[in-house]
Protein backbone atom coordinates (compact mmCIF):
# COMPACT_ATOMS: atom_id res chain seq x y z
CA UNK A 1 0.00 0.00 0.00
CA UNK A 2 1.41 3.33 -1.05
CA UNK A 3 2.21 5.95 1.50
CA UNK A 4 -0.16 8.95 1.72
CA UNK A 5 1.39 12.30 0.75
CA UNK A 6 2.17 14.65 3.61
CA UNK A 7 0.91 18.21 3.68
CA UNK A 8 4.28 19.40 2.46
CA UNK A 9 4.00 17.33 -0.71
CA UNK A 10 0.50 18.11 -1.91
CA UNK A 11 -0.28 21.11 -4.15
CA UNK A 12 -0.45 24.33 -2.16
CA UNK A 13 -3.75 26.16 -1.84
CA UNK A 14 -2.00 29.52 -1.82
CA UNK A 15 0.84 30.83 -3.93
CA UNK A 16 3.15 33.78 -3.42
CA UNK A 17 1.85 37.09 -4.77
CA UNK A 18 3.44 38.28 -7.99
CA UNK A 19 3.59 41.61 -9.75
CA UNK A 20 0.52 42.65 -11.70
CA UNK A 21 2.83 43.56 -14.58
CA UNK A 22 2.45 39.91 -15.60
CA UNK A 23 -1.33 40.36 -15.83
CA UNK A 24 -2.09 41.90 -19.21
CA UNK A 25 -5.21 44.05 -19.37
CA UNK A 26 -4.68 45.31 -22.91
CA UNK A 27 -7.36 43.12 -24.48
CA UNK A 28 -10.07 44.99 -22.55
CA UNK A 29 -9.86 47.86 -24.99
CA UNK A 30 -12.24 48.79 -27.78
CA UNK A 31 -10.35 51.80 -29.11
CA UNK A 32 -6.62 51.87 -29.75
CA UNK A 33 -4.50 55.01 -29.43
CA UNK A 34 -2.59 55.86 -32.61
CA UNK A 35 0.06 58.56 -32.53
CA UNK A 36 1.00 61.06 -35.19
CA UNK A 37 4.74 61.29 -34.54
CA UNK A 38 4.99 64.54 -36.54
CA UNK A 39 2.61 66.29 -34.15
CA UNK A 40 4.06 64.76 -30.97
CA UNK A 41 6.29 67.18 -29.07
CA UNK A 42 7.14 64.62 -26.32
CA UNK A 43 5.69 66.95 -23.69
CA UNK A 44 4.97 63.77 -21.66
CA UNK A 45 1.45 64.86 -20.65
CA UNK A 46 0.08 61.48 -21.82
CA UNK A 47 2.69 59.65 -19.71
CA UNK A 48 1.56 61.61 -16.64
CA UNK A 49 -2.19 61.13 -17.06
CA UNK A 50 -2.36 57.48 -18.20
CA UNK A 51 -4.20 55.60 -15.40
CA UNK A 52 -2.52 52.34 -16.41
CA UNK A 53 1.06 53.49 -16.79
CA UNK A 54 0.81 52.10 -20.31
CA UNK A 55 2.48 55.12 -21.91
CA UNK A 56 6.14 55.16 -21.05
CA UNK A 57 8.97 57.57 -21.63
CA UNK A 58 12.13 55.87 -22.82
CA UNK A 59 14.88 58.42 -22.11
CA UNK A 60 17.58 56.25 -23.71
CA UNK A 61 15.64 56.27 -27.00
CA UNK A 62 14.28 59.79 -26.54
CA UNK A 63 10.77 58.68 -27.37
CA UNK A 64 7.42 57.74 -25.92
CA UNK A 65 6.15 54.18 -26.23
CA UNK A 66 2.57 53.01 -25.81
CA UNK A 67 2.40 49.53 -24.30
CA UNK A 68 -0.79 48.06 -25.79
CA UNK A 69 -0.49 45.11 -23.39
CA UNK A 70 -1.84 47.42 -20.66
CA UNK A 71 -3.69 50.18 -22.52
CA UNK A 72 -7.43 49.86 -21.77
CA UNK A 73 -8.34 52.33 -24.50
CA UNK A 74 -9.92 54.97 -22.24
CA UNK A 75 -8.84 57.84 -24.49
CA UNK A 76 -7.60 60.19 -21.74
CA UNK A 77 -4.30 60.59 -23.62
CA UNK A 78 -6.06 61.57 -26.86
CA UNK A 79 -8.32 64.01 -25.01
CA UNK A 80 -5.52 65.70 -23.05
CA UNK A 81 -2.82 65.79 -25.74
CA UNK A 82 -2.07 69.53 -26.29
CA UNK A 83 -1.20 69.02 -29.98
CA UNK A 84 -3.91 66.40 -30.64
CA UNK A 85 -1.22 63.95 -31.77
CA UNK A 86 -3.17 60.92 -30.51
CA UNK A 87 -6.38 59.63 -32.07
CA UNK A 88 -8.44 56.69 -30.88
CA UNK A 89 -9.10 54.18 -33.67
CA UNK A 90 -11.57 51.32 -33.67
CA UNK A 91 -9.28 49.03 -35.64
CA UNK A 92 -6.01 47.86 -34.18
CA UNK A 93 -3.40 50.54 -34.69
CA UNK A 94 -0.02 50.21 -36.33
CA UNK A 95 1.93 50.82 -33.10
Amino acid sequence: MSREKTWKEISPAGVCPKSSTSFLTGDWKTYTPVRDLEKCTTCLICVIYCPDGAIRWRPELGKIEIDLNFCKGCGICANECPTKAITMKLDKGDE
Partner: protein
Amino acid sequence: MTTQEWKFTARDIAEKPDQFLSGHRACAGCVPATVLRLVMKATRGPTIVTEATGCMEVVSSIYPYTSWAVPWLHTAFETAAANAAGIDAALKALKRKGQVKEHIDIIAIAGDGGTYDIGLQALSGAVERGHDFLFVLYDNEAYMNTGIQRSGGTPLGAATTTTPAGSVRPGKLQHKKPITDIMVAHDMEYVATASPYYWKDLLTKVRKGLEVEGPAFLHVFATCPRGWRSDPANSIEYTKLAVESCVFPLWEAVNGEYQLSTPSKLIALAPQKKKPVTDYLKGQGRFRHLFKPQGKPVLDEIQRWTDERWAKLLKKCGEAPKTA
Protein backbone atom coordinates in the same frame (compact mmCIF):
# COMPACT_ATOMS: atom_id res chain seq x y z
CA MET B 1 8.24 72.44 7.49
CA THR B 2 10.94 73.63 5.15
CA THR B 3 10.03 76.28 2.64
CA GLN B 4 11.98 74.52 -0.08
CA GLU B 5 10.29 74.63 -3.47
CA TRP B 6 9.94 71.33 -5.25
CA LYS B 7 10.24 71.39 -8.99
CA PHE B 8 8.62 68.26 -10.29
CA THR B 9 9.06 68.43 -14.05
CA ALA B 10 7.20 66.20 -16.47
CA ARG B 11 10.50 64.51 -17.26
CA ASP B 12 11.28 63.84 -13.58
CA ILE B 13 7.90 62.19 -13.18
CA ALA B 14 8.17 60.19 -16.41
CA GLU B 15 11.65 58.94 -15.56
CA LYS B 16 10.87 57.87 -12.00
CA PRO B 17 9.78 54.21 -12.07
CA ASP B 18 6.13 53.58 -11.23
CA GLN B 19 5.44 52.32 -7.72
CA PHE B 20 1.80 51.71 -8.56
CA LEU B 21 2.24 49.26 -11.40
CA SER B 22 0.52 48.50 -14.69
CA GLY B 23 -1.76 45.49 -14.81
CA HIS B 24 -4.12 46.67 -12.08
CA ARG B 25 -7.78 46.05 -12.84
CA ALA B 26 -9.29 49.50 -12.59
CA CYS B 27 -11.86 50.43 -15.25
CA ALA B 28 -10.72 52.28 -18.35
CA GLY B 29 -10.40 55.98 -17.59
CA CYS B 30 -10.13 55.51 -13.81
CA VAL B 31 -8.74 58.73 -12.34
CA PRO B 32 -8.05 57.28 -8.85
CA ALA B 33 -5.51 55.02 -10.62
CA THR B 34 -3.85 58.11 -12.13
CA VAL B 35 -3.93 59.76 -8.70
CA LEU B 36 -2.19 56.84 -7.00
CA ARG B 37 0.44 56.64 -9.75
CA LEU B 38 1.17 60.35 -9.26
CA VAL B 39 1.09 60.17 -5.45
CA MET B 40 3.67 57.39 -5.55
CA LYS B 41 5.84 59.48 -7.90
CA ALA B 42 6.20 62.10 -5.17
CA THR B 43 7.70 59.82 -2.52
CA ARG B 44 11.09 60.86 -1.15
CA GLY B 45 12.47 57.51 0.09
CA PRO B 46 11.34 54.28 1.72
CA THR B 47 7.57 54.31 2.02
CA ILE B 48 4.94 52.02 3.51
CA VAL B 49 1.42 52.26 2.12
CA THR B 50 -1.71 51.12 3.94
CA GLU B 51 -5.03 51.15 2.23
CA ALA B 52 -8.61 50.80 3.37
CA THR B 53 -11.04 48.65 1.43
CA GLY B 54 -12.18 50.43 -1.69
CA CYS B 55 -11.82 50.45 -5.44
CA MET B 56 -8.09 51.05 -5.45
CA GLU B 57 -7.43 48.35 -2.89
CA VAL B 58 -9.46 45.80 -4.82
CA VAL B 59 -8.06 46.51 -8.27
CA SER B 60 -4.45 46.54 -7.09
CA SER B 61 -4.44 43.36 -5.03
CA ILE B 62 -6.47 40.67 -6.79
CA TYR B 63 -4.88 37.42 -5.68
CA PRO B 64 -2.19 36.41 -6.50
CA TYR B 65 -1.19 39.71 -8.11
CA THR B 66 -0.08 42.96 -6.53
CA SER B 67 0.29 46.33 -8.22
CA TRP B 68 2.45 47.76 -5.46
CA ALA B 69 6.22 48.07 -5.66
CA VAL B 70 6.36 49.20 -2.01
CA PRO B 71 5.37 47.43 1.24
CA TRP B 72 1.60 47.59 1.27
CA LEU B 73 -1.01 46.59 3.82
CA HIS B 74 -4.69 46.16 3.22
CA THR B 75 -6.93 46.95 6.15
CA ALA B 76 -10.63 47.07 6.92
CA PHE B 77 -12.85 49.85 5.60
CA GLU B 78 -12.75 51.88 8.82
CA THR B 79 -9.11 51.54 9.80
CA ALA B 80 -6.74 53.05 7.22
CA ALA B 81 -5.65 55.73 9.69
CA ALA B 82 -5.58 53.31 12.66
CA ASN B 83 -3.29 51.06 10.61
CA ALA B 84 -1.03 54.00 9.76
CA ALA B 85 -0.91 54.85 13.48
CA GLY B 86 0.12 51.26 14.24
CA ILE B 87 2.86 51.32 11.62
CA ASP B 88 4.12 54.63 13.01
CA ALA B 89 4.18 53.21 16.57
CA ALA B 90 5.97 50.06 15.39
CA LEU B 91 8.60 52.07 13.49
CA LYS B 92 9.20 54.24 16.56
CA ALA B 93 9.73 51.11 18.68
CA LEU B 94 12.10 49.59 16.11
CA LYS B 95 14.04 52.85 15.90
CA ARG B 96 14.34 52.93 19.69
CA LYS B 97 15.78 49.40 19.59
CA GLY B 98 18.13 50.42 16.81
CA GLN B 99 16.67 47.96 14.32
CA VAL B 100 15.50 50.68 11.93
CA LYS B 101 17.86 53.58 11.28
CA GLU B 102 16.39 55.52 8.35
CA HIS B 103 13.19 57.52 8.18
CA ILE B 104 10.26 55.69 6.59
CA ASP B 105 7.26 57.58 5.26
CA ILE B 106 3.75 56.26 5.83
CA ILE B 107 0.89 56.91 3.42
CA ALA B 108 -2.67 55.88 4.28
CA ILE B 109 -5.04 55.78 1.32
CA ALA B 110 -8.83 55.61 1.42
CA GLY B 111 -11.72 56.53 -0.79
CA ASP B 112 -14.56 58.84 0.14
CA GLY B 113 -16.45 56.01 1.87
CA GLY B 114 -13.38 55.08 3.90
CA THR B 115 -12.84 58.71 4.90
CA TYR B 116 -16.10 60.69 5.02
CA ASP B 117 -18.18 57.93 6.56
CA ILE B 118 -16.65 54.70 7.80
CA GLY B 119 -13.06 55.75 8.44
CA LEU B 120 -13.69 59.13 10.08
CA GLN B 121 -13.33 58.12 13.73
CA ALA B 122 -10.05 56.23 13.13
CA LEU B 123 -8.74 59.20 11.15
CA SER B 124 -9.79 61.70 13.79
CA GLY B 125 -8.17 59.60 16.53
CA ALA B 126 -4.89 59.08 14.69
CA VAL B 127 -4.65 62.80 13.93
CA GLU B 128 -5.40 63.72 17.55
CA ARG B 129 -2.62 61.37 18.73
CA GLY B 130 -0.28 63.10 16.30
CA HIS B 131 1.04 60.11 14.37
CA ASP B 132 3.39 60.87 11.51
CA PHE B 133 1.58 59.90 8.31
CA LEU B 134 0.01 61.33 5.17
CA PHE B 135 -3.64 60.49 4.61
CA VAL B 136 -4.64 60.58 0.95
CA LEU B 137 -8.37 60.71 0.25
CA TYR B 138 -9.23 59.94 -3.37
CA ASP B 139 -12.73 61.29 -3.69
CA ASN B 140 -14.81 59.72 -6.45
CA GLU B 141 -17.98 60.78 -4.66
CA ALA B 142 -19.70 57.44 -3.94
CA TYR B 143 -19.07 53.80 -3.00
CA MET B 144 -18.11 52.85 -6.56
CA ASN B 145 -16.51 49.50 -5.72
CA THR B 146 -19.73 47.99 -4.33
CA GLY B 147 -22.02 49.41 -7.01
CA ILE B 148 -22.32 53.20 -6.77
CA GLN B 149 -24.04 53.76 -3.41
CA ARG B 150 -24.15 57.32 -2.06
CA SER B 151 -21.59 58.43 0.53
CA GLY B 152 -21.03 61.55 2.61
CA GLY B 153 -18.96 62.78 -0.31
CA THR B 154 -21.69 62.47 -2.94
CA PRO B 155 -22.83 65.92 -4.11
CA LEU B 156 -26.41 67.22 -4.15
CA GLY B 157 -28.51 65.97 -7.04
CA ALA B 158 -26.24 63.08 -8.03
CA ALA B 159 -28.06 59.88 -8.99
CA THR B 160 -26.61 56.80 -7.32
CA THR B 161 -28.10 53.34 -6.87
CA THR B 162 -29.27 54.27 -3.34
CA THR B 163 -30.39 57.80 -4.32
CA PRO B 164 -31.89 57.16 -7.75
CA ALA B 165 -33.30 60.14 -9.62
CA GLY B 166 -36.96 59.93 -10.57
CA SER B 167 -40.29 61.63 -10.20
CA VAL B 168 -40.09 61.56 -6.38
CA ARG B 169 -36.48 62.61 -5.73
CA PRO B 170 -33.88 64.48 -7.80
CA GLY B 171 -30.99 62.21 -6.77
CA LYS B 172 -29.14 62.82 -3.50
CA LEU B 173 -30.91 65.34 -1.25
CA GLN B 174 -27.91 66.50 0.78
CA HIS B 175 -24.80 68.50 0.01
CA LYS B 176 -21.27 67.12 0.21
CA LYS B 177 -19.76 67.01 3.70
CA PRO B 178 -16.94 69.59 4.07
CA ILE B 179 -14.39 66.96 5.09
CA THR B 180 -11.30 69.12 4.52
CA ASP B 181 -12.63 71.83 6.84
CA ILE B 182 -13.32 69.13 9.43
CA MET B 183 -9.67 68.07 9.15
CA VAL B 184 -8.44 71.68 9.43
CA ALA B 185 -10.47 71.89 12.65
CA HIS B 186 -8.20 69.13 14.04
CA ASP B 187 -5.41 71.74 14.23
CA MET B 188 -3.30 69.80 11.76
CA GLU B 189 -0.09 71.19 10.39
CA TYR B 190 -0.96 70.46 6.78
CA VAL B 191 -4.30 70.00 4.99
CA ALA B 192 -4.73 70.47 1.25
CA THR B 193 -7.00 69.78 -1.70
CA ALA B 194 -5.63 68.71 -5.08
CA SER B 195 -6.79 67.78 -8.55
CA PRO B 196 -4.82 65.47 -10.85
CA TYR B 197 -5.27 67.82 -13.83
CA TYR B 198 -2.91 70.16 -11.95
CA TRP B 199 -0.38 67.38 -11.50
CA LYS B 200 2.53 69.53 -10.42
CA ASP B 201 0.39 71.06 -7.67
CA LEU B 202 -0.71 67.54 -6.63
CA LEU B 203 2.86 66.18 -6.42
CA THR B 204 4.09 69.22 -4.52
CA LYS B 205 1.28 68.83 -1.99
CA VAL B 206 2.04 65.11 -1.53
CA ARG B 207 5.68 65.96 -0.85
CA LYS B 208 4.74 68.75 1.56
CA GLY B 209 2.45 66.33 3.39
CA LEU B 210 5.27 63.79 3.70
CA GLU B 211 7.71 66.44 4.97
CA VAL B 212 5.40 67.35 7.84
CA GLU B 213 6.41 65.70 11.12
CA GLY B 214 2.97 64.63 12.18
CA PRO B 215 -0.31 63.95 10.43
CA ALA B 216 -1.12 65.52 7.08
CA PHE B 217 -4.31 65.26 5.03
CA LEU B 218 -4.67 65.49 1.27
CA HIS B 219 -8.07 65.51 -0.44
CA VAL B 220 -7.76 64.57 -4.13
CA PHE B 221 -10.63 64.91 -6.55
CA ALA B 222 -10.94 61.83 -8.79
CA THR B 223 -13.41 61.14 -11.57
CA CYS B 224 -15.08 57.73 -11.75
CA PRO B 225 -16.41 57.33 -15.31
CA ARG B 226 -18.31 54.18 -14.31
CA GLY B 227 -20.16 55.76 -11.41
CA TRP B 228 -20.52 59.23 -12.90
CA ARG B 229 -21.81 57.74 -16.16
CA SER B 230 -19.35 59.88 -18.06
CA ASP B 231 -17.07 59.33 -21.05
CA PRO B 232 -13.80 57.78 -19.82
CA ALA B 233 -11.86 60.03 -22.22
CA ASN B 234 -13.16 63.12 -20.37
CA SER B 235 -12.12 61.86 -16.91
CA ILE B 236 -9.18 64.22 -16.49
CA GLU B 237 -11.18 67.05 -18.12
CA TYR B 238 -13.73 66.89 -15.28
CA THR B 239 -11.02 67.28 -12.64
CA LYS B 240 -10.13 70.54 -14.42
CA LEU B 241 -13.73 71.75 -14.81
CA ALA B 242 -14.44 71.07 -11.12
CA VAL B 243 -11.66 73.49 -10.20
CA GLU B 244 -12.60 76.08 -12.85
CA SER B 245 -16.24 76.10 -11.70
CA CYS B 246 -15.14 76.32 -8.02
CA VAL B 247 -17.02 73.10 -7.25
CA PHE B 248 -13.67 71.81 -5.98
CA PRO B 249 -11.35 74.76 -5.27
CA LEU B 250 -7.67 74.09 -4.65
CA TRP B 251 -6.19 75.38 -1.42
CA GLU B 252 -3.93 74.38 1.42
CA ALA B 253 -4.10 75.13 5.12
CA VAL B 254 -0.73 75.26 6.88
CA ASN B 255 -1.25 75.35 10.64
CA GLY B 256 -4.83 76.43 10.04
CA GLU B 257 -3.85 79.35 7.77
CA TYR B 258 -5.84 78.99 4.56
CA GLN B 259 -4.16 79.83 1.27
CA LEU B 260 -5.47 79.44 -2.27
CA SER B 261 -3.36 77.38 -4.67
CA THR B 262 -2.43 78.89 -8.03
CA PRO B 263 -5.28 77.52 -10.24
CA SER B 264 -7.92 78.78 -7.80
CA LYS B 265 -5.96 81.94 -7.01
CA LEU B 266 -6.14 82.90 -10.69
CA ILE B 267 -9.94 82.58 -10.55
CA ALA B 268 -10.04 84.68 -7.38
CA LEU B 269 -8.02 87.41 -9.12
CA ALA B 270 -10.10 87.26 -12.32
CA PRO B 271 -13.66 86.23 -11.34
CA GLN B 272 -14.80 86.33 -14.98
CA LYS B 273 -12.81 83.10 -15.44
CA LYS B 274 -15.08 81.27 -12.99
CA LYS B 275 -17.22 78.88 -15.02
CA PRO B 276 -20.87 78.09 -14.25
CA VAL B 277 -21.37 74.75 -12.50
CA THR B 278 -23.41 73.53 -15.46
CA ASP B 279 -20.16 73.40 -17.50
CA TYR B 280 -18.94 70.79 -15.05
CA LEU B 281 -22.24 68.96 -14.51
CA LYS B 282 -23.24 68.50 -18.14
CA GLY B 283 -22.08 65.32 -19.80
CA GLN B 284 -22.19 63.42 -16.51
CA GLY B 285 -25.00 60.86 -16.59
CA ARG B 286 -25.47 61.08 -12.83
CA PHE B 287 -26.66 64.70 -13.27
CA ARG B 288 -28.56 64.14 -16.54
CA HIS B 289 -32.00 64.51 -14.88
CA LEU B 290 -31.07 68.00 -13.64
CA PHE B 291 -31.05 69.30 -17.21
CA LYS B 292 -34.75 68.55 -17.62
CA PRO B 293 -37.15 71.44 -16.71
CA GLN B 294 -37.98 69.99 -13.26
CA GLY B 295 -34.27 69.82 -12.38
CA LYS B 296 -33.76 73.61 -12.61
CA PRO B 297 -34.27 74.33 -8.86
CA VAL B 298 -31.60 71.73 -8.00
CA LEU B 299 -29.17 73.21 -10.53
CA ASP B 300 -29.81 76.66 -9.04
CA GLU B 301 -29.21 75.30 -5.54
CA ILE B 302 -25.91 73.68 -6.60
CA GLN B 303 -24.78 77.01 -8.09
CA ARG B 304 -25.89 78.94 -4.99
CA TRP B 305 -24.15 76.54 -2.61
CA THR B 306 -20.96 76.51 -4.73
CA ASP B 307 -20.89 80.35 -4.79
CA GLU B 308 -21.53 80.52 -1.05
CA ARG B 309 -18.73 78.06 -0.23
CA TRP B 310 -16.36 79.84 -2.64
CA ALA B 311 -17.11 83.20 -0.98
CA LYS B 312 -16.47 81.65 2.45
CA LEU B 313 -13.21 80.16 1.23
CA LEU B 314 -12.06 83.52 -0.18
CA LYS B 315 -12.77 85.06 3.21
CA LYS B 316 -10.75 82.35 4.99
CA CYS B 317 -7.89 82.89 2.54
CA GLY B 318 -7.99 86.63 3.12
CA GLU B 319 -8.87 87.38 -0.50
CA ALA B 320 -11.04 90.41 -1.12
CA PRO B 321 -14.28 89.27 -2.76
CA LYS B 322 -14.54 90.51 -6.34
CA THR B 323 -17.57 90.49 -8.56
CA ALA B 324 -17.41 89.27 -12.13
